[in-house]
């Protein structure tokens, strides 16, 4: 910004200073980063679609923000996901597999898919209260997410502290979630599922580097305990008692899965994530902004992962803005993951869940937005994601049967009152 003369309009200077001090992005939670307005409404409609006629999700999300005064504000977040399609159960040997193992085949294996077409909804509501002090902001958030086979109740406490002449922002937070999951559609026999608890913590610092760039470093820790398996997934274990088959979506003879064993994971999981973010302004390019993110993740199931994301926000004429972005992700497999299990394991853990395999993924997309009348902004975007075992650099077990891609189409609007 150019030098401001001493006799410049004090009100303008104050407004600009306040805007600058309310530094965007110093808030760790994605939920809490909407620009502060007296009243605002954000609405988003997205369509998610996987390749191979797998899952499809229509996502409807809205956020309403209201400021009571210059210290206290409330925010209500509502989400409704409508889910259809089928999801992978686990790979099995081709030809020896039950009726529903009719997914993609490769290398003598075939993918078993959920038999019935899934049609369910997820609804989430959460309310956030934010209170500003002289050099700190406190956030309280509580909510509930429910499906016909999953319920999650959660609350989060976050604080942000401005230090070092507001050059540095310290973020701390704690989150708790109590979840319950169960197998839906079981007509007889035992129902898989259970409860789990999750405790999360965050410690983050955002540092202004100069008048055009800033850096953020976050460290998050999460502990989960309880039922952490997936009640809908099975691992192929041909040695497993074929005369007492587990059942899939009910115990009629046509749906029994002999030679399979339920997804069985450890009862606890510790997860650590480290995020580094760099943002830089390019005044000479019409105030374009470069965003570079790197995340390292590790957990006690033996998984390590690396995530790289780069986006370029380019303002163009008349309120138009275009944002291309790319993403790369790689992870190795969990210690107890295997494509199939030819013998019992010593620890009794079994999982062929594709999300615990070793793989890589490349993604990218573009968003275009247009600001209208200073109080309305509309945005449309498309993203594409390709998961492939061969893209992974982290090693571990996995199979090309689990390769898939998805596309995400979105439209959103932001209204300020």
């Amino acid at each position: 910004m150019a030098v401001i003369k001493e006799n410049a309009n004090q009100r303008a200077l104050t407004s600009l200073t306040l805007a600058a001090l309310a530094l965007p992005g110093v808030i760790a939670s994605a939920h809490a980063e909407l620009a502060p307005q007296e009243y605002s409404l954000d609405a988003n409609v997205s369509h998610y679609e996987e390749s191979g006629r797998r899952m499809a999700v229509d996502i409807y999300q809205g956020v309403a923000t209201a400021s009571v005064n210059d210290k206290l504000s409330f925010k209500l977040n509502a989400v409704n996901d409508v889910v259809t399609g089928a999801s992978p159960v686990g790979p099995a040997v081709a030809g020896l597999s039950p009726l529903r193992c009719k997914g993609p085949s490769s290398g003598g294996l075939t993918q078993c898919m959920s038999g019935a077409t899934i049609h369910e909804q997820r609804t989430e509501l959460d309310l956030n209260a934010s209170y500003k002090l002289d050099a700190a902001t406190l956030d309280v958030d509580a909510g509930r997410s429910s499906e016909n086979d999953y319920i999650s109740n959660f609350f989060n406490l976050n604080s942000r502290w401005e230090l070092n002449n507001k050059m540095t922002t310290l973020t701390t937070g704690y989150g708790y979630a109590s979840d319950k999951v169960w197998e839906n559609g079981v007509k007889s026999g035992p129902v898989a599922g259970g409860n789990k608890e999750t405790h999360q913590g965050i410690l983050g610092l955002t540092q202004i580097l100069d008048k055009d760039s800033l850096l953020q470093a976050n460290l998050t820790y999460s502990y989960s305990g309880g039922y952490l398996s997936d009640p809908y997934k099975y691992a192929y274990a041909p040695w497993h008692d074929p005369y007492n088959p587990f059942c899939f979506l009910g115990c009629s003879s046509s749906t029994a899965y002999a030679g399979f064993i339920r997804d069985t994971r450890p009862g606890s999981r510790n997860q650590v994530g480290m995020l580094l973010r760099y943002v830089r302004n390019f005044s000479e390019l019409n105030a374009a902004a470069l965003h570079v993110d790197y995340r390292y993740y590790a957990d006690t199931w033996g998984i390590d992962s690396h995530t790289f994301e780069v986006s370029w926000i380019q303002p163009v004429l008349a309120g138009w803005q275009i944002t291309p972005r790319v993403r790369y992700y790689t992870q190795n497999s969990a210690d107890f993951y295997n494509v199939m299990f030819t013998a019992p394991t010593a620890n009794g853990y079994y999982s062929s869940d594709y999300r615990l395999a070793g793989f890589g993924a490349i993604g990218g997309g573009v968003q275009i937005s247009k600001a209208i009348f200073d109080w309305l902004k509309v945005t449309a975007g498309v993203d594409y994601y390709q998961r492939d075992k061969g893209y992974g650099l982290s090693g571990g077990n996995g199979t090309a049967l689990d390769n898939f891609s998805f596309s995400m189409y979105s439209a959103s609007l932001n209204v300020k009152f």
Partner: protein
Amino acid sequence: MKVRNENLMPDRKIVRLATIISLVLSFASGCAGSVAPWERGNLAKPQMALEPNALDAAIMKHTYSSKEAASGGYGIGGGGCGCN
């Protein structure tokens, strides 16, 4: 198959992470000159926010965490889901 005690986070990883973060932030604050409030106009632009489109970012991160093992780093909060 590697054998690991699932109740203990590998200490070396935590130490390594803490060291990296400390070094980065030390470097960052060492490099950071003082930026007066009236020089922060560029930083206050909407495109300079860490999450310029928070709603879109929340949806994408929820999607990724449903299809990948990793989560966290960006923040805490939100409930779990039975996503498959």
